[in-house]
C-alpha cells in the first residue's frame, strides 16, 4: 500500500529540515541533562525566583518532582519538545500533498499507475515514521547521556512514557497538518490550518499555564493531553494517550479520504 520510490523521494526532500531539528534537539537535551545537579538545583531555584511566576509557568518551569526525570520533564518536555518537532511536521506535512498540488507536480505522481489513496497513505506513513525516528532518537540519546552522567538516576520507564506521550502528541499535530495538506489546493491555505492551528494550540497551552484565570484555556488545546507532570507522577495518563492516538488515526484517515475524493486543479 506504500509507494517505495515516493517515500524515498519525500524522505530526501525533507532531509535537511529533519537534520536541523534533530541537531537542535541533540543540542538541548544533553545540555539540559548535564545541568541537573541535586545541589545545583537549589542555586537554580534562586535564579528562577528572579523571573515572574507567570513567565516561568508559561514555559512550564514549575516542577513537582525533584529527581532527574522530573528535571528533564520540566526543562525539556515543558516546552522544547513541544516546539521543535512541530516545526518539522508543519513543514513536512505541507510538502507531502498541498505543495505538490500547488506547484503542479502532483500531476506527474498521478500520471503513474498509483492510486490516490496509495499516494496519501505513503505520505502519511512518511510523517509517522519520521516523527518516530525523531522521538526514538531523543529517547535513546536521553537515556545514554543520563546513564553516562548520572548512572542509575534516571527513571527509565518514566522517561520512555514521557517520550511516548510526546510521540502521540506529535502524531496528532502532524495529523492535523496532514489533513490540511490533503484538503487544500495550495500551500497558503494548507499552512493557514496546518500551521496556524498547531501554533494556536501551543500558544493557548502556554497561556493556560500562566495562572488560574487562564487555566480554562487548557480545554481548547490538544497540548493538554500531553501532561509531563501527570506522566512522571504516574497519574492516569493512559486515557490521554488513547485520545491522542484516536485523534491521530481520525485525522490521517480523513486526510486520505479527502484527497481521494476531491477534484484537483492540475
Amino acid at each position, binding site marked *: 500500500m506504500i509507494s517505495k520510490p515516493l517515500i524515498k523521494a519525500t524522505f530526501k526532500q525533507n532531509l535537511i529540515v529533519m537534520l536541523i531539528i534533530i541537531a537542535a534537539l541533540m543540542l538541548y537535551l544533553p545540555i539540559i541533562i548535564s545541568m541537573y545537579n541535586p545541589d545545583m538545583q537549589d542555586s537554580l531555584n534562586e535564579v528562577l525566583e528572579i523571573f515572574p511566576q507567570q513567565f516561568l509557568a508559561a514555559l512550564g518551569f514549575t516542577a513537582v518532582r525533584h529527581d532527574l526525570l522530573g528535571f528533564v520533564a520540566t526543562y525539556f518536555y515543558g516546552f522544547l519538545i513541544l516546539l521543535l518537532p512541530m516545526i518539522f511536521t508543519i513543514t513536512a506535512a505541507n510538502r507531502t500533498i498541498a505543495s505538490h498540488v500547488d506547484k*503542479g507536480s502532483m500531476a*506527474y505522481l498521478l500520471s*503513474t*499507475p*498509483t492510486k*490516490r489513496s496509495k499516494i496519501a497513505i505513503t505520505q502519511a506513513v512518511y510523517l509517522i515514521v519520521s516523527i518516530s525516528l525523531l522521538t526514538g532518537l531523543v529517547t535513546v540519546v536521553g537515556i545514554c547521556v543520563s546513564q553516562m552522567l548520572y548512572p542509575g538516576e534516571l527513571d527509565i520507564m518514566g522517561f520512555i512514557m514521557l517520550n511516548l506521550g510526546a510521540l502521540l502528541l506529535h502524531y496528532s499535530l502532524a495529523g492535523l497538518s496532514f489533513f490540511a495538506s490533503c484538503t487544500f489546493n495550495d500551500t497558503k491555505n494548507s499552512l493557514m490550518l496546518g500551521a496556524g492551528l498547531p501554533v494556536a494550540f501551543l500558544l493557548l497551552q502556554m497561556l493556560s499555564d500562566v495562572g488560574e484565570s487562564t487555566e480554562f484555556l487548557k480545554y481548547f488545546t490538544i497540548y493538554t493531553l500531553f501532561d509531563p507532570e501527570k506522566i512522571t507522577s504516574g497519574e492516569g495518563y493512559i486515557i490521554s494517550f488513547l485520545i491522542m492516538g484516536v485523534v491521530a488515526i481520525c485525522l490521517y484517515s480523513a486526510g486520505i479520504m479527502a484527497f481521494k475524493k476531491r477534484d484537483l486543479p*492540475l
Partner: protein
Amino acid sequence: MPVIEISGLTKDYGNHKGIFDLTFQVEEGEVFGYLGPNGAGKTTTIRHLMGFISPDKGYASILGMDCRMQSACIMAHLGYLPAEIAFFDGMTGIDFLNFMAEMRGDIRIALRDKLIDMFNLDVKQRIRKMSKGMKQKLAIVCAFMHDPKVLLLDEPTSGLDPLMQKTFAELILEEKKKGKTILMSSHSFEEIERTCDRAGIIRQGNLVAIENIKDLKEKRRKTYLITFDSAEAAEEFKKNNSFDEIETNGATAKVSVTGNVATLVRELGRYNVLELDTESSSLEDIFMQYYGNNNIDGRMQ
C-alpha cells in the same frame, strides 16, 4: 471500440466557463488534434481524461475504463504531457526520469536513451536550472519513454525551437506507425496540420466541429498579401477578380481565398508581382468560419 471515449461530458464552473456536453471518440491508431483558443476547455477536457476532476454530467473513458474511477489502471498504458510543466525541485533530469520509471514500475533504458538523444537533452542538469525548452523536452521524454499505448499531449511543442518541433512531429508520425492512439491539444493550427488525422475544434466549452484534416485544409480560408508593381495594377486586379475578399492598399492587395488557390495563381500570372506573402489565419478567423456560419454540412459528431 474507441480507445478514448467522451460522452456528454459537462463541467460547469459558472459564468459560461467550463465544458458542455462534449461527445467524441478517438479510435485506435488515430492522431486526434484538439484545437481551441486559451480558455476554450482543452485542458479541462484533458483533466477529466486524466482523472483529476469529476464531471457534472457524462463520462470519459480510456481503453474501456472510467477515467476517474480507474485512473491508476489506465495510467499503466498512458503517457501524459501537461501544458504547465512542474517537476520536482532539487532533482536532475535523469533523477526525475528514474523516479518516474520507478513509480511506473516500467524501466526501459534503451527507449529512454534513444529519446534523450533524439531531443538533445542534457539530463545531468538540475531541473531548476533548465530553460523552458529543456524542461519541455524532458517532459516529452518522460511521456514517451515507457512506450505507452495512449498519449495525451497538452500543447506539446510549446517552448520548442523550430528544429525540435520538426523532431517532435517525426516522433508523432513514428508512434502513429506503431499503432499508438494520440490526442494532442493546441492553439496552433499549423502544429495540428502537420501530424493529425482528424481535428476537433472547441470554443467556449462547446465542440463546434470535428473534421478530417484534409477537409479542414480545403475549407480553410487563407489570406495572401500581394505586392504589385503599382497601385493601378492592384486596382485592376481587384476589379477583374472576385475572390472571397479583396482589399487594396496602394500597391498591395490582401486577398482571401478558400480552398484551392490555383485560380489565384493563374490570375496573378498576368501581373508583375513583386512580393507574395501569407497571413496565417488567426484562430478566431477559423472559428468564425465554423462557429459563425453553417458551412459544416451538419457534420458535427
